[in-house]
């Protein structure tokens, strides 16, 4: 039947969830409204701004542009899943230490893009970092420090942190 909720089994931040969701629910809707993971932001809803970025099966995607049911059987990581206890992920820590956070709204999406980049390529060139950062818009135009923060995090991660 049209609109009838379907079963969704998805792993989010290491935990398995079994939910029933409407077919038209976006991954963003389910993460924020059902799972209360409000670190996942909701921006333009038309795949332009990138603030809603999460990691889906190891790849950065925009959670406003994926149906929740498309994540069935897959693994999602959000900003809430990065820290290990009290220890922040090196990308998070570098953003704080380097003063790369301005208003903060785009930062969760941006950190996820940076993490996906560094998982795939531990030693990116500045151009590669810029291209990745470009996938999330910053209204404060704070890109320079953000790019530098990703490079600092990359160096620390290569050093085994």
């Amino acid at each position: 039947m049209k609109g009838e909720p379907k079963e969704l089994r998805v792993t989010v931040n290491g935990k398995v969830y079994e939910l029933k969701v409407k077919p038209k629910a976006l991954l963003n809707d389910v993460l924020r409204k059902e799972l209360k993971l409000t670190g996942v932001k909701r921006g333009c809803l038309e795949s332009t701004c990138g603030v809603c970025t999460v990691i889906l099966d190891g790849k950065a995607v925009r959670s406003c542009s994926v149906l929740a049911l498309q994540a069935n059987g897959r693994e999602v990581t959000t900003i809430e899943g990065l820290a290990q206890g009290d220890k922040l992920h090196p990308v998070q820590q570098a953003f704080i230490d380097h003063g790369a956070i301005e208003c903060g709204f785009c930062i969760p999406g941006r950190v996820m893009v940076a993490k996906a980049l560094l998982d795939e390529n531990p030693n990116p060139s500045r151009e590669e970092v810029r291209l990745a950062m470009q996938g999330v818009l910053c209204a404060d135009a704070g890109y320079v420090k953000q790019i530098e923060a990703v490079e600092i995090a990359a160096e620390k991660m290569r050093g085994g942190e």
Partner: protein
Amino acid sequence: MKDFEYFAPKTVEESLSLLSQYKEEAKIIAGGQSMLVVMRQGLIAPEYVVDIKGISALDYMTYDEREGLKIGALTTHRTIEKSPIIQKHFKVLSEMETNLATIQTRNWGTIGGNLCHGDPAGDPVPVLMVLDAKLKLKSLSGERMVAMEGFSKDILEVDLEPDEMLVEVQVPVPREHTGIAHEKLMVMQGDAGIVGAAASITLKPGDGICEDARIVLSNAASIPLRAREAEKLLIDRELSDTLFGEAGEAASAGADPPSDVHGSAEYRKEMIKVFVRRVAKRAFARARGR
């Protein structure tokens, strides 16, 4: 977005059965990077959505010198961009993908979804047209091959029956002494092209005369536009910057671009001149091995 009924078939056959059952009322979603946007805008409101993203059998790439390149319809843009096969044998496809939207979109969006969306501003079609690509379409009643050129029918309309799906893109090996290039006008890298152009130039061995030329424009008409008049100016001629400029003029004269917030039709016509000249020049340099 309107409610719909959702299916996630595991195989191509299962997908085709659903399409044959629901026909016009059904719509396929792959990565959905374009489709969810038009569904949210209310441009389409399918009763049934057939989600094929999970069909791993359509996520592949193969290459050999005789058969050329075969790309499964569900291969993501990012996979194409990063593929060593593509970077070695079809560098232009990788270059095109690098400028297609953002990494997040390329990570989830598929080549097949992009082609079936039928956006005249899309980047892959012009490149695949100059490469003389073909598409394999499948339905319960069989298969048919169609040329990339001619697949686009109008804005967001393609030559696909309601019970058919695109399963494979086939790209022949370019002839020797062929160079191919693609560029588009962007405010920021990854933007949809305000206009775009792809060119393929094949030189005769020895004397450097142009044996064949193909030029295709994006966002220059309601479908990706083959600039045949521009091509004719180049074929059988000794190529030069002057000639590329004339080809740009001819391509621009034949174009009927839209006017919108990104640029007026007049501006786009001027930019078509520039971009045709640029891609033709670059394709020529590549054909000469430079």
